[in-house]
């Protein structure tokens, strides 16, 4: 029976591949975070018109032929880029890896909207005659598409699937990867999350209808969690995939280790489709701490989920205040303030932005907080300037999503 990561096999992160609106490698991304550089830009999409988004500029042709880009989806392409980068970063002797023992676990907020919208739009030009509907629609929209494209690109014959977990998906992918390693379902997990969401007008339109789509004259200042003048979410694309291994395997091959997953938890609000529930969030955080055998005072950095919505930010701060309000040690930041909300990639991408703190001892700040909302005041909130820390031992990463899905992971320096 699996109860905690510590009682069974210890699981570590050994490679990171990512694309973020402000960087296509961990190094670029970290530099941007420490320099306060936003990745949000002007953006335009059908029906919605001019808006803002976090847009990635990774080189898709680095690991894909042009035909493969055309055949597949943006989420698949993001996943392929991140997976290849992670394997290269991990220094794995890929040619001699048993591909049947590699598992691919990719978190997604949604999948298929982009292709469906494109097809319906195209079909309109043919008077809705379905003989013009693409035969590519099904393979592009099946829910395992991004993970499946990764297996095709890398010749992986182990298990693959996507974890649909709204905006908790990035964390959920990491948790799934760890659990499958502990179960022995795979020896190497490619785990994380991807987002192609800026290519669906529906997500922008829906947030707009909900009164939750950010606007600002200066794109780089639009994503502003905890600020009094925040007015919604900036949608972003992106991806982040880890190579995860059992600690014993990683040590045996002399792998570089970014950190160990020592605690995780997921739970459900069971209260509302969109409004978060701080009680359940608090429970989720405490559950992860309990599994890790840690007190709140031992967490050095809390990477928040806050998206820049009016109520959502307050709810998370309420949950964190209850858990970390008495901690002198804990510093709290928010990475969406730089890149917007990278949906299925958000959790794992935001965690990755913080992992270099194990080496450089710096907590990157939340940017765009000109006037801190009194209801978002938290002890330890890092705003505006990077915060030097003595030594970072533990990072806790929140990631929450619609339908009341909560996820927390805790990573320990190794």
């Amino acid at each position: 029976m699996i109860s905690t990561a510590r009682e069974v096999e210890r699981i570590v992160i050994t490679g990171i591949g990512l694309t973020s609106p402000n960087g296509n490698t961990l190094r670029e991304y970290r530099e941007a975070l420490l320099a306060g550089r936003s990745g949000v830009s002007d953006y335009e999409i059908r029906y919605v018109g001019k808006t803002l988004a976090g847009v990635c500029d990774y080189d898709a042709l680095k690991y894909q032929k042009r035909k493969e880009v055309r055949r597949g989806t943006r989420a698949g392409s993001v996943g392929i880029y991140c997976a290849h980068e992670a394997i290269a970063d991990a220094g794995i002797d890929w040619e001699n890896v048993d591909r049947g023992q590699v598992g691919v676990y990719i978190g997604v907020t949604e999948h298929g909207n982009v292709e469906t919208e494109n097809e319906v739009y195209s079909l309109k030009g043919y008077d809705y005659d379905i003989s013009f509907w693409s035969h590519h629609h099904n393979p592009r929209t099946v829910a395992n598409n991004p993970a499946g494209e990764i297996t095709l690109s890398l010749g992986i014959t182990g298990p693959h699937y996507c974890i649909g977990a709204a905006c908790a998906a990035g964390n959920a992918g990491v948790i799934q990867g760890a659990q499958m390693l502990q179960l022995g379902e795979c020896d190497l997990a490619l785990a994380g999350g991807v987002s192609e969401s800026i290519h669906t007008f529906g997500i922008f339109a829906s947030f707009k209808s909900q009164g939750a789509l950010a606007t600002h004259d200066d794109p780089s200042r639009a994503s502003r969690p905890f600020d009094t003048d925040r007015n919604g979410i900036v949608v972003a694309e992106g991806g982040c995939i880890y190579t995860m291994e059992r600690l014993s395997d990683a040590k045996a091959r002399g792998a570089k280790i970014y950190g160990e997953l020592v605690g995780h938890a997921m739970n459900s609000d069971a209260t509302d489709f969109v409004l978060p529930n701080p009680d359940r969030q608090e429970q989720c955080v405490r559950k992860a701490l309990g599994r890790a055998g840690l007190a709140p005072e031992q967490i050095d950095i809390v990477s928040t989920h806050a998206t820049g919505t009016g109520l959502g930010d307050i709810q998370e701060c309420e949950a964190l205040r209850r858990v970390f309000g008495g901690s002198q040690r804990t510093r709290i930041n928010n990475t969406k303030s730089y890149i917007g909300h990278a949906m299925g990639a958000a959790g794992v991408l935001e965690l990755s932005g913080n992992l270099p703190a194990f080496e450089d001892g710096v907590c990157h700040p939340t940017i765009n907080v000109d006037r801190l909302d009194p209801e978002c005041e938290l002890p330890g909130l890092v705003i505006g300037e990077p915060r030097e820390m003595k030594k970072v031992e533990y990072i806790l990463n929140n990631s929450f999503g619609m339908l009341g899905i909560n996820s927390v992971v805790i990573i320990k320096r190794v």
Partner: protein
Amino acid sequence: MTNAEIRDVILNILEGITPDDDLTTLKDDAPFREQLELDSMDFLDIVMEIRKRYRVQVPEEDYEQLASMASTVAYLEPMMKDLEKV
């Protein structure tokens, strides 16, 4: 459309479907599959593009007619000779 124009149309469609292949050396009498990286989904793309651009329907039983450039042009000629190239 002349046969040469029909060939140009097919070539243009192929450029979109298989952008990594060099089509300048394509031999008209040899099967596409022997020269290009084409699978069954790609052949469906050829059929779909002909349908979208010229409203020409290629029934499934005739797909084998699209094996090579020469056979494709010969097959399409009666259906496309009276159409203007777009």
